[in-house]
């Protein structure tokens, strides 16, 4: 029974080990792509296992170290989906001779084990270890393009600054431990309010926010993001801009909503400022970027800001909105990196905005997909990006955060500029002087990845009900949030009667 509660993690670990072993036994010159398919199978199995976990009754395992509930399963499914797509993207963009491919696939699988543990752990110790698993695997993957000058630098920056932030995170845990004598989320939720040293909690929480803020690239702890995204291989960016982030947000939710909800008067203002700064700095920074990956890095900062807005709502809707947003952001961001890593390749042939001019001429499919994802990133209705943003800000406004909503939506308006610049570039005529770029034919994995992400993006925008219900079920696992989900509209009986 215990094992079933961590079944997806086990599946992924096993798959990772299999990939690793197979890699070791294969001939040096042999193509490692079959390993990728093996990893894809593992991810699929993990996805199935995660979905299967919905049938489990909510409960804990291993002495209350992990808990399986609607919340953790929601994020498990999300992470399994992300890693699945990331693997497919990797398969598409690498060649048979790409170095260290076997390790890359294994690392992706192992990294997602960490991410998954982050979302289901209810013990800060496990959270810390899981966070390290996910972080360290990403540090490594960021440096995987060893021939490039940028990739190791990216890894180094990520590694050094990440460890720096981890130290803060760890200090925060220490202080919380110091305030309560425990590192169990459940214990904190039950007893932390009675701590006779609440100021240790304030400071500890702030340190945790710093650490996690770094992981989710929330301003002002965002500085690493553009550099790291620029240097890392695109398929890896697809993973690391979504998976660890979603997991880190889940952790933040666990801590602020699950463990320390009674401190909301302290953390809501902190997150408020983080949200405002992230949105503003992210969007303004992206305005001038000509490098598409850097631009998307800034964009991811901004999106972290939008997601933080949901946190500040301090309501069940806020949790649901944050969860929903994580899904929609993952879909569109993985999608756009699928396009970028296919068009630009594993070794980043296309970097600048102008390189993407006329992409839709070379490949209508890629151009169209890119436009779709960008439109979703802008937040145009009938895409996941819109509904996520809408739900986030609806939750914020419902909690009376008028100014935050205004700042956020004005920011999304500014953001439209740089996204649209890419859209228009993709659809503009290629410059006569530009060298003809050769876009490889879309491979099967790419098509699957694009279909997955595009379909998710559209489904989330057009028929969001199922995912929304799942997110709301996840939110309901937090009994701590006093504010109930808003009641149906007054006179909703009339709605149904009027037809």
């Amino acid at each position, binding site marked *: 029974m215990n094992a079933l509660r961590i079944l997806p993690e086990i599946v992924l670990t096993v798959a990772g080990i299999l990939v690793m072993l197979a890699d070791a036994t294969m001939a040096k010159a042999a193509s490692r792509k079959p390993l990728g398919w093996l990893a894809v199978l593992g991810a699929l199995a993990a996805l199935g296992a995660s979905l299967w976990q919905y049938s489990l009754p909510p409960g804990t395992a291993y002495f209350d170290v992990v808990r399986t509930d609607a919340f953790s399963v929601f994020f498990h499914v999300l992470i399994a989906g992300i890693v699945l797509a990331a693997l497919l993207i990797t398969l598409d963009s690498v060649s048979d001779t790409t170095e260290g491919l076997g390790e890359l696939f294994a690392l992706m699988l192992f990294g997602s084990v960490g991410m998954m543990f982050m979302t289901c752990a209810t013990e800060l*110790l496990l959270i*810390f*270890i899981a966070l*390290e698993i996910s972080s*360290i695997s990403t*540090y*490594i993957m960021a*440096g995987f393009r*060893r021939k*490039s*000058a*940028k990739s*190791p*630098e*990216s*890894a*180094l*920056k990520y*590694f*050094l600054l990440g*460890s*720096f932030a981890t*130290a803060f995170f*760890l*200090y925060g*845990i*220490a*202080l919380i*431990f*110091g305030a309560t*004598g*425990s*590192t169990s989320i459940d214990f904190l939720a039950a007893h932390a309010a009675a701590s006779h040293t609440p100021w240790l909690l304030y400071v500890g929480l702030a340190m945790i926010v710093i650490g996690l803020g770094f992981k989710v690239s929330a301003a002002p702890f965002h500085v690493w993001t*553009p*550099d790291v995204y*620029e*240097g890392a291989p695109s398929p890896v960016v697809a993973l690391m801009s979504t998976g660890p982030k979603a997991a880190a947000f889940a952790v933040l939710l666990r801590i602020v909503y699950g463990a320390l909800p009674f401190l909301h008067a302290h953390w809501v203002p902190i997150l408020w400022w983080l949200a405002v700064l992230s949105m503003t700095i992210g969007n303004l920074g992206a305005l001038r970027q000509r490098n598409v990956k850097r631009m998307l890095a800034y964009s991811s900062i901004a999106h972290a800001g939008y997601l933080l807005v949901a946190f500040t709502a301090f309501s069940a809707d806020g949790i649901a909105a944050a969860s929903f947003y994580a899904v929609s952001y993952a879909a569109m961001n993985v999608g756009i990196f699928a396009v970028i890593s296919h068009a630009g390749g594993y070794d980043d042939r296309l970097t600048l905005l102008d390189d993407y001019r006329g992409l839709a001429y070379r490949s209508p499919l890629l151009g169209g997909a890119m436009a779709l994802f960008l439109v979703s990133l802008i937040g145009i209705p009938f895409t996941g990006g819109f509904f996520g943003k809408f739900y986030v800000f609806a939750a914020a406004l419902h909690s009376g955060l008028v100014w935050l909503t205004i700042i956020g939506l004005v920011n999304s308006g500014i953001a439209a500029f740089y996204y649209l610049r890419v859209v228009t570039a993709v659809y503009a005529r290629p410059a006569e002087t530009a060298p003809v770029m050769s876009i490889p034919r879309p491979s099967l994995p790419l098509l699957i990845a694009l279909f997955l992400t595009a379909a998710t993006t559209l489904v989330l925008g057009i028929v969001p009900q199922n995912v929304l219900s799942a997110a709301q079920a996840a939110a309901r696992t937090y009994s701590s949030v006093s504010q109930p989900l808003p009641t149906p509209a007054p006179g909703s009986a009339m709605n149904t009667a009027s037809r």
Partner: protein
Amino acid sequence: MIPIAWYLVLSAILFSIGVAAFLIKRNIISVFMSIELMLNAVNLAFVAFAHEWRQVNGQIFVFFVMVVAAAEAAVGLAIIIAIFRARNTLNVDQVDLMKL
């Protein structure tokens, strides 16, 4: 009889020196070492709090931090080797290819 708070202050001093060292050191390996210093500072706090609460969990946490630090060290040093191969420098100021 030492107040626990003194241990905590000591941990804070070490942590801050670690931060300062991270900022000042130019050699990447030294920078990495300052991170280790910061982790050690945190460990001290953990142990102090464990003593305060008479909770063994705090010590176990430290144990895990050591493990993690070891793993990090392995990976970190590998990254440093990789960057040295790519750039032939260990000066952190010269690893700023990507900017703006």
